[in-house]
């Protein structure tokens, strides 16, 4: 029924006209682009084809879930489940070099089923797999991706499959995915890592000290977090690949918390609580030098820094007006000003800002009638929009697509992590465990990050 809203498949030459409110799903592979214009809210249909090699079942399952979680497709289940073969016999396509395992499909049939794209996984030579993205409307293969697959039990296996899913998304819609990402979070005073699809949870903070506030570096190769050491807060920077960590010099004698990497990965901004109050500092963590104080609060607190993706500005929390609210300043601490507008005396406390990777919004949470709700601030217009309303929702963190967001919610009766697609409003639990909090969503992970910490 959904497909009744499907507009005409149009052949676009030159720049595509973007109808307001509609999703443009044009392919951007070549000069001549095949595009499909949709009414708002209708997403392209995607079929993940049955696999004919048992070893690739897991690949198909993980990839299907990733594509579903991207919230950009209607995943279509084939009639009669996976048992019915609806593809025609594989034929080698000499145009792709002979070695390709691409199949031609009965495209009209898939089109009738509502599919715009079909993805097939076939075994390649050796331990490799070939992922073929079919453009059903155009009646041809959009792209073929070949990847070496680690053994199923290899800790790097899942990340490779997630990266394949991201490449399918990129091939189909020309946008970056979030499949090859992980989320750090705190549970019972320890830092854990979990894949964005809820699999492969593991402990990453190694000591017995109570930990808080994990934060990723922009390259996805390291992260920082804070630990309580005899009442002091020490910051650590840990490498994903080796699991090695080092304390950040110049921290440890005070209560340092909420670390945030600058986008160039050289500087760590953080909050430091002393008897004067809490203020923002930066330090060159690699050389362990150049501690710089950005704010001088005295009678109010400044905390929770987050960099804009261009590294020019820092959004942060300040209690200068009484209750904590969201402010912004230049990255060197100059020109502080209110960022998220509020009604004095009426608007509740606002905390935990995180700048989106595309730079356009800042997510934060705000006290609404005694409970917390997630809000987003439009950086350009400074308009504030409430995103959640069920239960208590806090500590939002952006996925690299600036469209998905992980946050803490007690909507199911206990506090745990959830993921929301800001565009469709679709919500799913990330894990079914009580007490998970302070999530930090990674950037797209580099391939070398696949080795276990």
């Amino acid at each position, binding site marked *: 029924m959904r497909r009744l809203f499907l507009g005409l498949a149009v052949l676009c030459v030159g720049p595509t006209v973007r109808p307001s409110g509609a999703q443009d799903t044009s392919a951007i592979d070549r000069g001549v682009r095949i595009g499909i214009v949709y009414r708002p809210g209708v997403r392209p249909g995607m079929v993940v084809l049955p696999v004919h090699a048992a070893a690739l079942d897991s690949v198909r399952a993980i990839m299907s879930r990733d594509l579903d979680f991207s919230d950009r497709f209607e995943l279509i289940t084939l009639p009669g489940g996976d048992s019915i073969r609806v593809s025609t016999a594989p034929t080698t396509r000499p145009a792709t070099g002979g070695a390709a395992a691409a199949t031609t499909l009965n495209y009209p049939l898939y089109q009738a089923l509502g599919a715009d794209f079909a993805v097939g996984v076939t075994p390649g030579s050796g331990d490799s797999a070939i992922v073929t993205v079919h453009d059903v409307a155009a009646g041809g293969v959009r792209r073929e991706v070949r990847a070496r697959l680690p053994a199923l039990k290899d800790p790097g296996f899942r990340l490779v499959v997630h990266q394949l899913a991201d490449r399918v998304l990129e091939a189909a819609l020309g946008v970056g995915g979030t499949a090859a990402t992980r989320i750090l979070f705190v549970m019972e005073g320890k830092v854990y890592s979990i894949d964005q699809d809820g699999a492969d949870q593991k402990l990453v903070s190694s000591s017995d000290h109570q930990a*808080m506030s994990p934060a990723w570096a922009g390259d996805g190769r390291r992260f920082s977090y804070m630990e309580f050491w005899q*009442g*002091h807060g020490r910051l650590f920077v840990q490498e994903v690949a080796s699991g090695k960590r080092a304390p950040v010099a110049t921290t440890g004698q005070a209560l340092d*918390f909420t670390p945030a990497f600058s986008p160039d990965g050289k500087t760590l901004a953080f909050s430091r*609580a002393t008897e004067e*109050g809490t203020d923002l500092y930066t330090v060159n963590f690699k050389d362990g030098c150049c501690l710089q104080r950005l704010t001088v609060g005295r009678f109010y607190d400044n*905390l929770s820094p987050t960099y804009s993706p261009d590294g020019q500005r820092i959004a942060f929390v300040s209690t200068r007006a009484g209750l*904590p609210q969201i402010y912004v300043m230049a990255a060197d601490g100059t020109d502080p000003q209110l960022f998220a507008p509020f009604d004095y005396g009426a608007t509740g406390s606002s905390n935990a800002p995180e700048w989106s990777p595309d730079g356009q919004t800042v997510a934060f949470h705000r006290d609404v009638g*005694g409970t917390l709700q997630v809000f987003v601030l439009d950086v350009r217009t400074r308009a504030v929009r409430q995103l959640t309303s069920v239960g208590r929702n806090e500590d939002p963190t952006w996925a690299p697509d600036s469209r998905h967001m992980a946050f803490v919610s007690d909507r199911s009766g206990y506090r745990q992590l959830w993921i929301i697609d800001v565009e469709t409003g679709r919500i799913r639990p990330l894990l079914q465990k009580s007490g998970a909090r302070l999530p930090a969503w990674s950037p797209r992970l580099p391939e070398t990050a696949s080795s276990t910490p």
Partner: protein
Amino acid sequence: MKRLPLLLLSGLAVAVMAACGGKKPETTPQPQAANADSLAEAERLRADSIARAEREAREREEAERERQRRIADSLAALGKSTEAVRTLLATMIHFDYDKALIRGGDAAVLDQKVSILQANPALRIRISGHCDERGSDEYNLALGNRRATAAKQYLVSHGIDGGRIETVSYGEERPLAQGHDEEAWAQNRRDEVEILSGGENLKQP
């Protein structure tokens, strides 16, 4: 008193000797009898002195035990004082929601701490500020810091050297009460005091 029967016995012996004084032939055994008597008496005296020595030793032991008991008692009393001071020092102060102001009633609690710190100049303490679970997790570190600092400022403004007081914040990370109601929250919005050093023997203020 124990010597009385001996005296009576020896007096009796003298009387016996005097009574028998006129009968010469019977005198021969007399010295022997007298000798036997004096030997017996010497024996008695010796036993008596031994008994006395033993008694004295027993008394000395008794006194020593008593002395030990008194020392132990006074040590216990001292310990009791240290324990009492510690308990007093550990009395927490509490805060209103999202506030770091010392409440009127808690000023008296802090005044006690001022007196204790004045009476024990070697004492160093650490004040930790805590919050309830309602606020933001990270903001609560800053709020707990304000709460610890507020108590320190009170002590310093009442004459305590600031160098003797450390402050830390645990935000909402170490709740005392586990509930999710105002009763638990009120208990968790607090400052705790722990002894860093100089707390082995504490004097009452």
